[in-house]
């Protein structure tokens, strides 16, 4: 009699325990799921944060680079900047170069100096979208007094020319010694006697684009 009663109680206990444990299991599953979900959400947010931080750093670098570029830009001589007279035709280049060459020919005592300009080409550079670069060679045949004067001429050409002048080639030979007849000719006849002869090849590049130079302070 009592055994049956106890068995029923045991079964009731087991059912209650099973249901309780099941409920607790569901609670645990819910808690673990919530924890995992939060972890995933946190990981996503952390990735997002890292992404934004990287963007901030990238933008800051870009901004700093721009500020630095602006400072550099302000220090660039105006003659090198893109201008209204963009020197993209042979005629404009001849007009711009001839006076400078003539002045320097006299300044550095060249007995003879002739200039030739090659055809103008437009250079396409990667990463350069808004600026066009026009380029050609300047070939100068000369007879000069001394090699020092020739080098000074080259240096001044690089400094004075609009745009950018780069020495490409130099050939120079000594044509005579500084002997007595030569010295006499220089001092008495006041004629320029060449001691060196050769040719110089420059590459001349000018920039074309919007007239930013006009806005320079």
């Amino acid at each position, binding site marked *: 009699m009592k*055994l049956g009663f106890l068995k029923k109680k045991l079964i009731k206990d087991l059912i209650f325990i099973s249901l309780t444990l099941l409920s607790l299991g569901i609670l645990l599953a819910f808690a673990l799921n919530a924890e995992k979900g*939060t972890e995933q959400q946190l990981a996503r947010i952390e990735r997002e944060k890292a992404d934004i931080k990287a963007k901030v750093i990238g933008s800051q670098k870009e901004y700093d680079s721009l500020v630095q570029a602006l400072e550099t830009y302000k220090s660039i001589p105006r003659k090198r900047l893109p201008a209204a007279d963009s020197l993209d035709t042979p005629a404009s280049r001849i007009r711009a170069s001839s006076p400078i060459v003539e002045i320097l020919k006299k300044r550095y005592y060249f007995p003879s100096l002739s200039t030739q300009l090659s055809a103008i080409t437009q250079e396409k550079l990667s990463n350069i979208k808004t600026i066009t670069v026009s380029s050609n060679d300047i070939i100068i045949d000369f007879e000069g007094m001394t090699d020092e004067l020739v080098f000074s001429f080259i240096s001044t050409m690089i400094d004075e020319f609009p745009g950018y002048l780069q020495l490409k080639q130099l050939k120079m030979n000594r044509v005579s010694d500084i002997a007595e007849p030569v010295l006499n000719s220089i001092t008495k006849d006041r004629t320029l006697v060449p001691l060196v002869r050769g040719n110089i090849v420059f590459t001349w590049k000018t920039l074309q684009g919007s007239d930013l130079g006009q806005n320079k302070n």
Partner: protein
Amino acid sequence: MTASAKWGYKMDLESVFNVEKKKFVVSIGDEGAILTLVDGGKLLKRAFATSPSSKDFMGMFSSAPKAPIYILVDVVDQAYIQHTLPPVSALNINKLVSRKLEKDFDENDIKAALQIGREKEGRKDWQYLFVSVRNIPPVSEWVDAIANLDNPFGGIYLLPVEGMNLIKDIKKVLRPSIPTQGEVKWDILVSHNRVGGFRQIVFKNGQIVFTRIAQPIGGQTPDVVAGNIEQETLNTIEYVRRLGYVDEEGLDVYIIASRDVKNVIDVNTIPARSHYILTPFEMAGKLGIQGAAEESDRFGDVVAAVYFANCKSHIISLHTEYTKQIKNLYLLRVIARATAIIVGVGILGFSANSFTNSVGLRSKLSDANDSIIKAEEELRKVKLERSKFGAEADRIKEITDLDRMYSKDNKFPLDFMSTYAGIVGFTMFTDSITMDIVENADSKNGIKSLFNVQFEKENMRIDRVLDDIDLFTSDVRKRFDGYKVEFKGLPDQNTLKLQEDKADAQKNITIQVDISSPQDNKMGAGIGGLNR
């Protein structure tokens, strides 16, 4: 009905998990049964009945339906047999005891075995006390009636066996300072009980040796009862002598009887070292269970029952087959509940831990969200600053890039020539220069140059010219360290002497110097930073 018991099983699991403090103890004797309801050591109820058919008596259990019922047996039909068992391993001794119990006792007896010691020397035999109760009326009637009640069943216990706890505590309070040398080995506890009569239990070194019970003869007057007690005690001592007792070993006698009996007992008739005669009321006071008896109480049953209920552990519980099944069901419930509690607490622990983690993560999540808001604000500000440059930004950047690219190296050929011009020789002069600016593999400007150098030898000593050439070549190499330098037309002394002897000897020695930038650009920077 088969009876069995767990030997050495001193505490019921039910009692561990039972939060109910109330307990019923039913002392069963041949004359009837006494019910005692105890709550934390306090006696709440007591009642007497001659048989389980008493409805008033049986109805009292429903007053505390969750209180477990313990049966304390004090009947005549009990057997106590000491056995010395061979020294088998501790794992096998239970099987051996079980087999011997089945063999020595009747199948229907309620029986158990109590380990009372093990020899420390020699074979180390096991010492066991086998106990049994005949499962016949009145015991069987009471057990069946009580086991079928709704109350939890606490088990069947034997009063003489549980008396081992009682004698230990009695000796603690009555003989607290016995020196070890004078330790009394033998004790006799005599209790005048309502349900059984004169229960006498003999202990040696605190272990039960045997027990006997006697019924009062000749009436219930104090003189008669005292005489019975004296005589029965004497009989017991005589029996103890046959078990090996000698006077030198020492014997104490403890008697529980009514005050009237106590007053007339002549202890001089009992040959013992010490005699302690206490009334049930005095005994309850000594044991710290003052409410267990009244001053007028004449019997020791109730004090023993309350003491038993108050004990934290019992010596041994016995079961019939039926009560064993009941016990197992209780045990299953306890195990199920204990397992459920452990698993439940574990799950709750995990859940709480997970919840705590989630809270921590949510806090981090909130911080991360705040950081994102700040980062986005920072990004917005930077973009705003960047936007102030407008459309000109790209052009400015491109112009500065081009300027850096085209201005960078445009004077370095002149620096190169300046370095060369620093080379001075007494007899040398440069006749021609050829210089080409070339683009290296890594898009950096390099240089290829060729110098024709003349050394005058006319009117010069040969060794002086050669010294001058040596000086020149070493100076070139030193100044253009890192460049590729080659000399062509370098003479030696013999060549020069040979030329001297010839009529058409040349006036000058011509050397070609080829200086060019290193191809791999891994070499040093060269002079004046020319190698860029």
